[in-house]
């Protein structure tokens, strides 16, 4: 019984982390039709920034660091989008390749700046004591992460469903040509959404830091997970990213617990099924 509860909580916290990671990716993929392969690197950059900031300045707390790192990474993302991606408008494949190249640049820069060792990100002081539930122990921070994911999901939902910006984003996702035709400034929207997506990734990197630690290769470990979530949940759908994250969280956690030799197969098999039988994902709504 304890096994099921603990693994269930693990699944929820992994799902929460995955949602924070992939919500930005889904947004960018949905609106800009761009598989932003730099996403893992932006996430990792956030983790490294948190590692340095939190270990050097005792007065900083992780929440402000997350927002700060989010802005820094968003600025970097915006520059990248304006200076590089817009010039490749006519060449979508080129855009994907350039995001891959950028991810190598960022990860090598991180290696150069922070060296090859794993750097731990300290868990916030007031959340370090584990929670005692039904006679066993579970790290408090992971439970908080689930709550955070729900908060971010709610904020994004409000943004997309209830604001004008959100309406423009939804229009762009559904039918880009028509949106342009009715006067929506699609290029500016692209930059805003790219900044938003990468900013969330950077903040997610900070929030995931206490669990994952900053290490070279973190970007390559996280990117496939973001891809799987978005493919499963559906491109361009926030609900899809939310549901997909928790589904993958459960599949991965219980899969590795019950069939440890098949860890990655368990992860990718559902994705293959989804692509074969329902290519738009569970809630996908990519239009024209």
């Amino acid at each position, binding site marked *: 019984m304890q096994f099921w509860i603990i693994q269930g909580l693990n699944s929820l916290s992994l799902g929460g982390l995955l949602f924070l990671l992939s919500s930005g990716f889904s947004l960018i993929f949905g609106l800009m039709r761009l598989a932003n392969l730099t996403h893992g690197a932006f996430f990792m950059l956030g983790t490294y920034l948190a590692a340095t900031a939190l270990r050097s300045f005792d007065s900083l707390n992780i929440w402000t660091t997350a927002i700060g790192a989010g802005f820094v990474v968003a600025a970097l993302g915006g520059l990248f989008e304006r200076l590089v991606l817009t010039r490749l408008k006519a060449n979508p494949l080129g855009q994907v390749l350039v995001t891959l190249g950028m991810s190598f640049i960022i990860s090598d820069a991180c290696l150069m700046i922070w060296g090859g060792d794993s750097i731990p990100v300290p868990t916030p002081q007031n959340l370090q004591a584990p929670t005692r539930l039904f006679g066993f122990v579970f790290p408090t921070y992971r439970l908080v992460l689930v709550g955070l994911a729900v908060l971010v999901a709610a904020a994004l939902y409000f943004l997309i469903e209830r604001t004008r910006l959100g309406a423009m984003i939804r229009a762009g996702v559904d039918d880009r040509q028509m949106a342009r035709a009715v006067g929506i400034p699609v290029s500016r929207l692209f930059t805003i959404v790219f900044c938003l997506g990468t900013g969330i990734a950077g903040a997610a990197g900070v929030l995931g830091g206490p669990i994952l*630690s900053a290490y070279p290769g973190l970007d390559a470990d996280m990117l496939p997970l973001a891809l799987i979530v978005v493919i499963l949940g559906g491109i361009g759908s926030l609900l899809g990213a939310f549901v997909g994250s928790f589904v993958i969280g459960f599949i991965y956690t219980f899969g590795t617990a019950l069939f*440890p030799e098949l860890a990655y197969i368990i992860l990718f098999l559902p994705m293959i099924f989804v692509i074969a039988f329902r290519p738009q994902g569970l809630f996908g709504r990519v239009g024209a």
Partner: protein
Amino acid sequence: MSISRRQFVGVAGAGIASMAAPNLVFAQSSDPIRVGLLAAKTGPLASGGIDMDLALTTFLKERDNTLAGRKVELIVADTAGVPATARTKAQELVEKNNVHCIIGPLAAFEALAIADYLTEKEMPTLGVAAAEDMTQRHPSPWFVRLTSTSAQCAYPLAEYSAKELKYKKIVTIADDFAYGHEMCAGFQRVFEDNGGKIIQKIFTPLATPDYGSYVAQVKSADAIFLGTAGSNGFRFLRQFIEYGLKDKMAVIGGMTALDESVLRNMGDEALGILTTSWYSAELDNPLNKAFAPAFRKQFKYDPGYYAGSTYVSGEVLEAALKTIKGNVEDKKALMAAIRASNADTIRGVIKFDEFGNAIGNVYIRKVTKSDGRLVNSVIKTYPDVSQFWTYDKTAFLKNPVYSRDYPPAKNLEP
């Protein structure tokens, strides 16, 4: 601009001719000894590769880049931790740079990628990688390894855990590739031969960002043995502590689990953990007492497994060169001298068995605090440990190589 066919053939012909022209090497004793270092200086194994480079450069600088009376030129090649790149770099070192011997590489999969090439080219190699079969069932006369096989250091710790710590049940966790399999297999064999039981063997994918679900699977036992490499052990340990398990079980580790390079980023949670290795920065012999503090003074951290490995290679190479009076051009003599050497190094005296693997001291270390920083203090020394432990080597070699399922784990709890 169009090139005429004549121009093209002319240029191409000249190009091919220059590549095919034999490299003229004059064997003169005033020519420097060229040593190639294959280290992964970028990529996930970077931290180890960088240490390897720093230690070897330090070794040569201490000797004014002169060994056995001849100047030494070091050529460092970055393998990036990728077997194909390791192969390319090895070829460059041999054919373009004309090195006389090679030190490295770091990872077993890199070593396996270049093993047959180095044997074919008869290039003396002082290896670091731990793959068992390279000095057991597929040895090469041109390869020696002066560190340890994957399981060699685990044997003394397994005996120590059973006999002195009196542990009865242990859970092992390691990365899911050959190094992890071999180390846990060796540990299991000796631990169970001494009356203990391995009740669970967990193997995690090499790239595991979150160890949560694995920590939650760990069964209750006397201790958990970490057969991990790089920073995975430290990341797993963090989660282990967060789930409250460190209060219930002891933690012991293999030679790369809590290396000095990992310890420097850890806090008090690491105190008291026992690990085993062929080296520790705290070793109390005259050579190490000169090397370790100097390394720390220059680079601000203690030397560990990787820095130790290349420094020891330098010491062994120097001993061999002195025997053959610096005549590296005679490759067979160099190789024979290396294999017959009995060098005094920072890890103690080491010699090589007939397969080219080092026989030397293995140290049981405990994490303690010294001068306000974490160190691996040596608490017991097992002298003259060979890759076969106390087993008969013919019988050992008749068995299949250690793997995930060999020796079979008979005491696993469901």
